[in-house]
């Protein structure tokens, strides 16, 4: 499994990288962590003429607090998300999801921005970007722009990124004292792509749900919000009965794919079970 030949360039700035991509007529790929791209190249599923290494671009690094947002540079590695105090305190949902992302050695190289740009429906971070109402900063030759996570994931491995664009950073609103979150996934083995995964991000008002975002992975061609289930919870305390209403509502939010080995109703059933456990486990004390 050896990749086809390619030219390799390591530009010094984001602007240079964008220009190199343009000059290659689009027959190029950015490589950051490479943990998904390199196997694709080895399997010859992809064969760009030029590989543009953006992993070390200073502009893409760093985790910082800015006006109520946590800003995460696109080239931030998963292990940094896992171990960052800032993330643990201000975006705990990411810290809870991080241990499930692949395996330790993959986390040492794979990047947060890379995960969102690839938009594998079975990945944890794209779904958590939805759950956190993230804001994605995109760099392009036409200038920078922002896209909300809501509008970023468009289809199977399809995002709002146009060819040649790259994610510069991702911002998430920081957690407050009334935030509660939980993450879990069901996978056959630790680190495998999940059969179903879910992150819930709740804002409490006293002990009622003031707002909630529920995002699933591995339930379709993209990460999915469960908006009907969310609506069922808003304004209510998280009682067992109310949780059951939310679980029932999932049938309207999710239409998972299926095959003979994992039928659609299996995924939907697991999504129900997972949601129930996550919501049931939240500490709703003020």
């Amino acid at each position, binding site marked *: 499994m050896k990749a086809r*030949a390619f030219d390799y360039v390591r530009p010094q700035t984001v602007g240079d990288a964008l220009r190199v991509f343009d000059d290659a007529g689009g027959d190029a790929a950015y490589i950051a962590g490479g943990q998904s791209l390199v196997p694709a190249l080895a399997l010859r599923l992809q064969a760009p003429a030029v590989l543009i290494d953006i992993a070390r671009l200073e502009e893409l690094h760093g985790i910082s607090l800015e006006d109520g947002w946590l800003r995460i540079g696109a080239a931030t590695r998963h292990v940094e998300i896992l171990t960052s105090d800032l993330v643990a305190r201000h975006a705990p949902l990411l810290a809870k999801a991080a241990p499930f992302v692949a395996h330790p050695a993959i986390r040492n190289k794979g990047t947060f921005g890379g995960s969102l740009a690839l938009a594998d429906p079975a990945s944890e971070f794209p779904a958590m970007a939805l759950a956190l109402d993230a804001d994605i900063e995109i760099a392009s030759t036409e200038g920078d722009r922002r896209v909300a996570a809501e509008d970023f994931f468009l289809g199977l491995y399809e995002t709002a990124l146009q060819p040649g664009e790259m994610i510069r950073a991702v911002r998430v609103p920081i957690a407050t004292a009334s935030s509660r979150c939980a993450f879990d996934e069901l996978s*056959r*083995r630790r680190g495998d792509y999940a059969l179903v995964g879910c992150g819930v991000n709740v804002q409490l008002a006293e002990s009622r749900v003031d707002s909630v975002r529920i995002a699933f992975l591995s339930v379709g061609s993209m990460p999915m919000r469960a908006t009907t289930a969310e609506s069922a919870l808003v304004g209510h305390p998280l009682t067992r009965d109310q949780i059951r209403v939310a679980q029932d509502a999932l049938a309207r939010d999710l239409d998972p794919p299926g095959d003979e*080995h994992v039928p659609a109703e299996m995924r939907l059933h*697991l999504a129900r079970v997972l949601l129930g456990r996550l919501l049931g486990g939240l500490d709703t004390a003020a």
Partner: protein
Amino acid sequence: MNAFAGGLDRPNSYIGRSVSRPNAKRLLEGRGRYVTDLVLPRMVHAAFVRSPYARGRIVAIDIAEAAALPGVRAVFTGVDLAAICTPWVGTLDHFAHMKSPPQLPLPLEQVSWSGQPLVLVIADSRAIAEDAAELVMVDIEDQPALADPVAAMALGAEPLNAGFSDNICFASRLDSGGVDDAFAASEHSVEQSFVFGRHTAVTLEPRAIVADYDPSEGRLTAHHATQTPYQFQDVYSRHFGLSEANVRVIAPDIGGSFGMKLHVYHEEMAVVGASILLGRPVKFVADRMESFVSDIHARDHRVTARLAFDASGRIAGMEVDDVTAIGAFSSYPRTSAVEGNQVVRLMGAPYDFAAYRASLSVVFQNKVQTSQYRAVGHPIACAVTECLVDAAARHLGLDPFEIRARNVIADDNYPRTSPTGYQFEQLSHEACLARLRVLMDYDALLNQQAQAREKGVLLGIGIALFVEITNPGPAFYGVGGGRISAQDGAIIKLTPAGEVHCSISVTEQGQGTETIIGQIVADQLGVDRATVRVMTGDTDTTPYGGATWACRGAGIGGETALQAARKLKANLLSVASIVLQAQPDELDIRDGWVVERTTGQQRISLAEIARIAFFRSDTLPAGTQAQLSVALHYVPQGYPFAFTNGAQGCLVEVDADTGFVKVLKHWVVEDCGRIINPLLVDEQIRGGVVQGLGAAFFEECLYDEQGQLTNASLADYLVPMAVEMPDIAIDHVETPTRDTELGAKGCGEAGTAAASAAAMNAVNDALSGHGVAMTQIPMTPTRILRALGTI
């Protein structure tokens, strides 16, 4: 534990001792020498163009563009290799009416499985070879694939192999008599239908070979990652028309084998042929995708079985029908029928009943070839037997230990012959069952289970008894015409410095063969084992022998080493007695010194004996011919197999909401006869158990209707990893075989033989309150939820 010849407090007493492996140090420092590491001068690299279709007629192959790519040294098709390699047929005479189509390294006209190698590209690097492989144009007229064994067996089904009238590779029936009467007379019976997932070995080091043909001497050296260099010396010499003396096969460090690296593969044969045609070394390493579509598969069985028993749970009879799906041809030279043959003959083996009937159908498919893989057939026979026994127990409300206690062959009731013709010298089912109950603290587990149930947690406890075939004699392959040796040879030499060098024909793949041979030689000779060096795996430097398979290394290789060491010791004492003017029987060897047997007083060192014999033979009496090297061959001649036996237990937690199962703990009580190195035996058992648990919960090769293997990657074929596997407690009973001095039997496959059966019984125990019994492995969450009616 029965101590060997005086126990562990004798000097140089190594038999029965847990000691570390001398040959593991280099592996720990990254200095292993695997075929995948080998580089030879002017070596080139191989890649294959493979069939995208499971079945089809080859219309045309165009290699021009590939051959013209810079860095490509040759492109070979079927015709090129057929000119220098005779076809092979994977049948054995003692499987009556067995049929299989002849195989050539690369096909001439027909493709028979998806992934079959069609064209061989040779280039300066593997990457360039892959570039060129993409440029080969192959035109195949695809045909409907036979990918369902039931359909392939049906009357009138189109034969997959031209010239055959049907798709049956081999069929057999066993009938001990009395089965219909037994079922008619029995108050109860249970019947179940089982489906066993098709497996592949997934050795971490893939298959690899460096074939190095030297035309100046007409000599082939094959550096081959194989368990059995001797078999391949024979295969390469016969099929390529080379004299046997001019074929050397070297098996260096092997990165896992488990039986998979015993078999003849088209790719390796093609690469040997390429080296002969090019006159330079050619290297082939299967990448992981190739491994999935070309390594042998195994364990693809559909079994319907029933058990007749009385009101007290005593088994009266058993009947089995086994349909096993193999590949498009039978593997060579060990056939694809041995597994099925063992399945039907191992059924019910621990239990005392006489009426047994079985039918076996071995069915061709347009899939990868199948053959022997760790525990060959045992896991299926054990699972069917043990699940039926548990079903009978549930039917009667009997405890699983109790029903087994009522049915096992009593420990004092040997020798015995099974209804299937297997001869048991002496097994210990009662002792193992009792020991397992203690090891598991079964009563505490039952308590734990009851308390958990009150909290809505489903724990399951399952047990399984098994027998295992080890130390096979020539009845296995030789009688069928297979040139696979059932004997072994050892050459042991004293070096001038008084150290010991042993070359022996059993081989090492990490189980510890070289270590235990060293222990036996040191023990029997009377030297520190640090002065003994064991060499294996090279047909030029070791005697011809059976190598590693069917757990024969410790029992047969060990006995060979033991007897050879005793022979050398006698020679050394003979020389010493001349030098010391004493009687040989007054002397002994301890810690490398010839000593007075009764007092232990040191008289002369082995180093001094060696010095005199090698350099100062002038000081010896005329006519003295000191023999400081010995050669000895040994073949087992008692029982056709040395059966071992044991009992396993498994504790699981089933999440009935998700269908996910957590394996909490596993136990094994194993009787493998005399244990040479308990540490190594226990680790073999653990590795085998985990392979069995992988079978129970994770592993299956998934095919679609077009014969495409749809999960041909490590991301999709699920091998057991650390988080999902339990700690495994092990205890032993030791019943040595009296067929050898050493008394050792094999143990390498025991863990795998019964682990999935114990796991199935555990899951079924957890689900018994739901009236559900799983009879298909792997027990995936989907299958469990379906069985529960959740989906």
